[in-house]
């Protein structure tokens, strides 16, 4: 197992530093799709494991939220404005309690949660897989439209390696470390990947193919919101009436 992993770790390491030879290797392997799939899942699992460790540590150093909630509540209800507020109408107290509970429910959701991190063990590799497939399919289609001659399987292999910068997220095993630069680094890696696969394309065309998946996704999300918002409005309006 370790022997099998060694070349992949080496490939990921050189891919992280945008070594063009590693992108050629990933694109021209025996089965770039399967190798790419393995690489993306491996990155996803490592990141999710680090996230799990970080969540456990974060949870272990976070003070008990329920105790803080009680103490803050005690302080708030003894303030003079609160007495005036409660006296203003019969529903005021209930409204306050509902809003207060909602705020603390959100705080519980945002606080480190090892149980949610366990779910991420499955969701993170899945999320990376979807991102990889979307990028490879759209970028390849756009690159071909622009005159690129690279093959689909090559794009699958090289673009999987372009996810190597996501490995930086393993630093999230330490709960208070802010990991930056992953997005822009991945973009650079994707540019290098597509440039190697579609060698005949000029740099502006490669750049267009690299940013096309994100632009199309943004466009689709906006369209979806524009379609869903009136439907939701009508639905809520109907329920109210």
């Amino acid at each position, binding site marked *: 197992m370790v022997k099998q992993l060694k070349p992949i770790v080496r490939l990921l390491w050189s891919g992280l530093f945008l070594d063009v030879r590693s992108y050629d290797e990933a694109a021209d392997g025996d089965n770039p799709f399967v190798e790419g799939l393995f690489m993306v899942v491996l990155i996803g699992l490592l990141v999710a494991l680090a996230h799990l460790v970080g969540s456990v540590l974060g949870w*272990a150093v976070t003070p008990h939220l329920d105790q*803080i909630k009680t103490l803050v509540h005690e302080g708030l209800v003894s303030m003079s404005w609160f007495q005036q507020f409660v006296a203003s109408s019969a529903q005021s107290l209930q409204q306050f309690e509902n809003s207060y509970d909602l705020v603390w429910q959100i705080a519980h959701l945002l606080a480190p949660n090892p149980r949610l991190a366990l779910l991420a063990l499955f969701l993170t590799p899945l999320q990376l897989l979807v991102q990889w497939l979307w990028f490879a399919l759209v970028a390849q289609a756009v690159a071909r439209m622009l005159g690129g001659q690279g093959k689909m399987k090559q794009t699958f292999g090289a673009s999987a390696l372009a996810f190597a910068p996501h490995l930086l997220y393993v630093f999230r095993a*330490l709960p208070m470390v*802010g990991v930056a630069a992953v997005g822009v680094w991945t973009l650079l890696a994707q540019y290098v990947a597509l440039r190697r696969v579609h060698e005949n394309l000029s740099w502006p065309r490669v750049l267009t193919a690299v940013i096309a998946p994100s632009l199309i996704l943004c466009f689709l999300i906006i369209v979806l919101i524009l379609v869903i918002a009136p439907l939701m409005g009508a639905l809520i309006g109907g329920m109210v009436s």
Partner: protein
Amino acid sequence: MKQRFRDWIAMARAALALESGPFYSFGSGPAPLQRAVLLVVVVGLMVGGVNAMIQLPALTRTPSFNVEALRQQIDQGLSFNETFRGELPPEVQTFLDVYRSSIEVFAPQIPKIMAVPSPLPAGVGRFLSWLGDWLSTPFGLLGRWLSISIWIMLFARLVGGKGTLLAYLGASSLSVLPHLLQALSFIPVIGGLFAVVAGIWGLAIQVKAVELTHQLPQKRAILAVILPYLLLFVLLAMALVVVLVLLMVTIAGGGS
């Protein structure tokens, strides 16, 4: 090891003096980005390390909260306001009274909230927070360097540059060297000045990196470095105008 360290120091001094040697050296070789990232990480760790060392004594102390000091601070703030603004309108005075009394009532809760235990001892949390602050510095520097460098690379190509991505990134990583000055940002008053000097010095190094790796004349290299900042300024100004217009339309709508 010692010799290698000396070489690095000599290289850093030459780069800071805008000599061409380090730019060629960092822009070539088998793995220019590996060396570039190493440099950025080392600078980030050194800058963060100085701040971390300053914070070190606080690690061993349990943070305390002085209720009386908070009361005095608020009273001082309010009386300062009253002194300069003169007689306050009755509704403002009522609001300030409620504000003052609310803080007085809530203040005793703060030490209790700070004393709420966590599953692990509080010292572990303080250590992880300290370590997190330190290790986040290189990531921040890496993010800023890469984000600005891809835009400079793009504009360098648009003004006729011929350099490759890796060669330019390798050379431009030297622009983080002046940011070592930010390790002195803890000094009161002049600390902020060091950040400004580091920023300007970093831009000069970026110009040199563009000039050498893209084989551009100096004027065009300056243009390639300045244009991303100009674009950012224009975009921010446009966003501000849009927000202001929306705000005015909302206010006008509310008024009618």
